């Protein structure tokens, strides 16, 4: 009886794992040797709104990952907390008032990874599953998980 129960639990856990994979997690990532060790949510929001965020006196270079629509939704709802039109306007205001730079926008995961490999001050976000086996990429924090 106990054996059957154990098999049932294992099967159930297996099914749950299929329905809710660990990859449904968005993480903040940098190159492995980046000076960024931690970043609070306010700083992350500022960063992706184009506001200068400095680490050791050097500004970070935000890279907006636009490789899929769900990631875009997570970005707008969880990271900058505004609609696409409001975000657009904030970016325009920053450039107009202060000459702030827009975050770089890249449409595929390999291009985001390339940008991170090439710049120790670059910072981006991606699905955990896309960086789990990337030794040159370091996860700074979890931004969202379903």
């Amino acid at each position: 009886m106990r054996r059957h129960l154990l098999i049932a639990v294992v099967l159930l856990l297996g099914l749950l794992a299929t329905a809710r994979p660990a990859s449904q997690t968005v993480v903040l990532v940098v190159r492995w040797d980046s000076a960024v060790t931690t970043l609070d949510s306010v700083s992350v929001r500022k960063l992706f709104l184009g506001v200068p965020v400095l680490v050791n006196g050097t500004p970070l270079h935000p890279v907006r990952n636009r490789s899929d629509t769900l990631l875009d939704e997570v970005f707008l709802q969880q990271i900058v907390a505004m609609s696409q039109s409001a975000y657009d306007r904030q970016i325009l205001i920053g450039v107009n008032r202060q000459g702030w730079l827009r975050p770089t926008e890249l449409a595929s995961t390999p291009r985001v990874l390339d940008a991170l490999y090439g710049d120790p001050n670059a910072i981006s976000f991606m699905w955990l599953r896309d960086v789990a086996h990337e030794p040159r990429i370091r996860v700074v924090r979890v931004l969202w998980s379903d």
Partner: protein
Amino acid sequence: MKMSPNSGIKPMRISLLRLAVLALCSPLARGDPLQHEFLLMPSAQAVGTFDRQAPVTEVVDQVVQADMLFSLQKGPLRLFGEYLLSDHEGDLERFQLGWQMSQDTVIWFGRYHQPTSVWNHEHHHGQYLSTSITRPAMDEWEDLGGILPQHFTGTLIESSNPALGDWRLRWALGAGIAPRITPDGLEPFDLVHPDSRRRQIGYQARASLHPGEFTETGFGVFAASDELPTIGLATAPIPNLDHVDLKLLGGFGAYASNDWKVLATVYHASTRLIAPLTTRSDSFAVGYVEIERRFAGDFTAFARWEDSANGSDAAYLQLFPAFFRTKHLGGVRWDFLQRQALTLQLTDSHTLKGRFTDVRVQWSAAFF
């Protein structure tokens, strides 16, 4: 290199550019890649005036313009400029070399928009970011009949710091070469065609409190002290007018939500007109309230009320015959496609010498 007598300031222009290039190549910026940004904000408007009883309106029937912003950044250093090209003028409006001293503070050197004008500090020259087509008369640019100096060349420090829990204190301090008074109105220092004859320094300060890091809602105070020399005036409110001491004190409040935006500003100006044998002191006040309401379908309705006190009696304002004593305007804006807008605006204006009404239609856009 030999300079002609009239080009005594040319080295300043060369030095500023050299300073910018040297700064971007300095050890401060070493190791960080050069990054850049370019923003184009074109607009076109047509204006019709009617019911016209004022001798001077300073209204141009049609304006096509392109506002271009560029930014170069390397490490904590930033070179930022704004060039406005229109069918009437081409001006380097802002040209600033900035050093990001900390996450919250930046110090600028160059030509900047003075921080006591809340409107101009928020919108600058780009028409797309302004809901109404025209700006308040008290914030009008110098070359369009503006009564207060707006462009200075010197140093500007801007900062935003935590205060009172989650609130933020935003402040700015500026000191720079002030505009001078000519027969055509105020004339700021021009970096492209520099002329340093009869120039003085002006000072500005602004501080405001905001309930959050990113909100426009807040309130604040500002002050400025400028000495404005005159040059080439054939007629003046007092004989042989040499310069004007202008002192400004004011405050503003703003409320911004998804649907509503309200902005109110008031200035009190004390002026002292100084001639070798006489002086004349006056004061006047100017202010405005603008209300904006967003509706479904990307429509925004807006209305603004501008007024002044003691404007008719102030000798300083006699230097600006097109100054608007009162102004009432209203209109509607429709945002369409990506970053494009059409705006219709109706204005009733009262100058010191008469009144008129105008209707305007504008297309504006922003392109990266």
